[in-house]
């Protein structure tokens, strides 16, 4: 019963923290995005992703660092306390949340693997670009293939259709490949998989905005001057004519994707390229990070026992 109670309390706290923080993120992410408008788009993309993952990280840290130790250290094992209705329901909710997240990610992985295997059934490796393998794909029977996309999580590859390769000029193809390599370097497909784990209603807009920002961040990383920006813009225009924009297949990063309004915004952004976008992001000294970590450890070291006691009181209230 002690173990069952511990698991129920742990899952309940996880669910409560996850739900409350997710709700807060749902309500506040727009404000965060507005405040970050002056930053480069890649930083905005990172911020949006961090906001999206914040509920999971916070819930996991609070559960692992406080709830579990407080229960193990302060809950008397000898008392055979019955498992209350509230922690039981919340615990089941927490377990379902985890199961749903894992199932969602598993389904996405399976669907992506299936789709990629269909696309690459008649594929030919053509070399590598920026240390990323490039594979030429060709349509087989009635399967629609993307003009260019990045697929794979652990071993990402750029899939390039023969039509796109023949349609683009050398400089346009180079810019387009740079865009896909930027997705690989930023591990965007892995991030998409992580988003599948942390489902929460009402986060669709945040995820959509993050997707737009990742595409624009990859555009920025792919070009280094106005000429290259125009090459990439021209590549987007040509490939948009080739294949009507569709949503990127699950866990892939297609160069051409819907909605069309985002494609147009990307093209217009590239046309209005400014060298100011090349300004490197201010890097924080590792000393600041180390200082913050040491300060956090010191604070927790001095107040940890009190915190555990407070958390235990809260969980006791939850059990009763």
């Amino acid at each position, binding site marked *: 019963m002690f173990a069952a109670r511990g698991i129920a309390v742990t899952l309940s706290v996880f669910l409560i923290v996850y739900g409350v923080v997710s709700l807060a993120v749902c309500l506040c992410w727009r404000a965060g995005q507005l405040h970050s408008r002056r930053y480069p788009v890649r930083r905005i993309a990172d911020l949006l992703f961090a906001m999206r993952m914040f509920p999971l990280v916070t819930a996991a840290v609070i559960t692992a660092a406080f709830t579990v130790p407080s229960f193990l250290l302060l809950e008397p094992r000898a008392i055979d306390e019955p498992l209350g209705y509230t922690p039981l329901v919340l615990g089941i909710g927490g377990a379902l949340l985890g199961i749903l997240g894992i199932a969602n990610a598993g389904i996405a992985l399976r669907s992506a693997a299936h789709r990629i295997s269909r696309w690459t059934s008649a594929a030919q490796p*053509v*070399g*590598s*670009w920026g240390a990323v393998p*490039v594979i030429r794909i060709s349509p087989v029977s009635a399967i629609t293939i993307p003009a260019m996309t990045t697929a794979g999580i652990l071993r990402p590859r750029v899939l390039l259709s023969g039509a796109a*390769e*023949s*349609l*683009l*000029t*050398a*400089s346009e*193809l*180079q810019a387009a*490949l740079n865009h896909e390599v930027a997705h690989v370097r930023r591990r965007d497909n892995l991030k998409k998989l992580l988003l599948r784990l942390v489902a929460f209603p009402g986060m669709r807009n945040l995820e959509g905005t993050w997707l737009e920002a990742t595409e624009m961040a990859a555009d920025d990383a792919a070009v280094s*001057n*106005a*000429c*290259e920006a*125009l*090459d990439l*813009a*021209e590549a987007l*225009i040509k490939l*948009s*004519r080739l294949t*009507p924009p569709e949503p990127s297949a699950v866990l892939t990063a297609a160069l051409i994707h819907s909605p*069309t309004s985002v494609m*147009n915004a990307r*093209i*217009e952004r590239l*046309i209005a390229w400014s060298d100011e976008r090349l300004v490197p992001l201010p890097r924080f000294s590792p000393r600041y990070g180390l200082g913050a970590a040491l300060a956090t450890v010191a604070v927790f070291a001095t107040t940890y026992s009190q915190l555990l006691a407070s958390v235990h009181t809260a969980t006791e209230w939850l059990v009763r």
Partner: protein
Amino acid sequence: MKQVFHFGASSPQLGPLEERLLEALWERGNATVRDLVNGACQGLAYTTVMTTLDRLFKKKLLSRETDGRAFRYAPRFTREELHRQVAGEAFRQLMDASSASSLPLSYLVDVLTERDEQLLNHLHQVVEAKRRELRGGESRRGEAPSKTKSETPTKLKI
């Protein structure tokens, strides 16, 4: 908008004057007849504005409340809301216009594709103009172009 605009059972259409007054009210938020006659609708007779506003009120496009001895009118919908309703109504009419329901949708897809194509053409022209501008800037400075761009598709060594 006025050609497809049907509101409620009476299905009235928006005339040019009604559109003008509606625009003026969207700009101001709310107004009395006197405000409009003295402001955005100068040159129109007081009674004309009053009658038109009353017509818009009866079409349920405006709300009104008493302000002294006059009425103060305000739009019941934002411009975007009204456009959305108009578009929705137009699509409904389009769908109802044919017994084969897929046909109107295919017209719609055709129109959207046409518009996309026009937009892409426009963007292509902007890219070309920008390229010319860049080349012009470089040649004025007497510099070699930063990149030689081949206009025909070329194989890239990957």
